[in-house]
């Protein structure tokens, strides 16, 4: 198991219910593959630094979860099919942490 952190950017034009549904589906993608969701940090609607697909605002959420490394590509591959998905980024914070 490895700890991953995925930031998802969703269409801010969608209703709160639709966004919650998309986040629930994302959690489902992880749990279906034997992972466990440690937490979802909802940043909410924010102005984008630049226009993406003619959108100026986006809904940000950061999902932290534990997952087997070989399942990561499956989860990432399924993410673009979420409703209102714009883009996502997955990082492994432990891999970039330096011991001072």
């Amino acid at each position, binding site marked *: 198991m490895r700890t991953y952190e995925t*930031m998802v*950017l969703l269409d801010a034009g969608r209703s709160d219910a639709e966004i919650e549904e998309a986040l629930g589906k994302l959690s489902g993608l992880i749990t279906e593959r034997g992972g466990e969701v440690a937490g979802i940090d909802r940043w909410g609607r924010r102005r*984008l*630094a*630049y226009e*993406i697909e003619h959108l100026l605002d*986006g809904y*940000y959420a*950061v999902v932290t979860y534990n997952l087997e490394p070989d399942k990561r590509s499956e989860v990432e591959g399924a993410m673009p099919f979420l409703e209102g998905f714009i*883009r996502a*980024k997955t*990082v492994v*914070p432990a891999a*970039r*942490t*330096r*011991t*001072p």
Partner: protein
Amino acid sequence: MARREQGSRRDRDQGSRRERFVRKPRVRVCFFCKDKVGYVDYKDAATLRRYMSDRGKIRARRATGCCTKHQRDVAIAIKNAREMALLPYVSR
């Protein structure tokens, strides 16, 4: 330039009436090393913005004062933040 050299030579000949100008090296401390930051977070756009020019370009190490390792981490974090539209690629 030549005149200044002549002047300095004259000063030297007359004894050191004028103190020779010596540039003191500026002591630069890496902000991340000082604060013992282990992970440069790409989500912290406000901190990363300090390492960018008004144009949105990544500042050089000589300008940021970061150590090599943290400068590399900052550059990677800025690139990640740009990808997620937290920071701009360019700003006019």
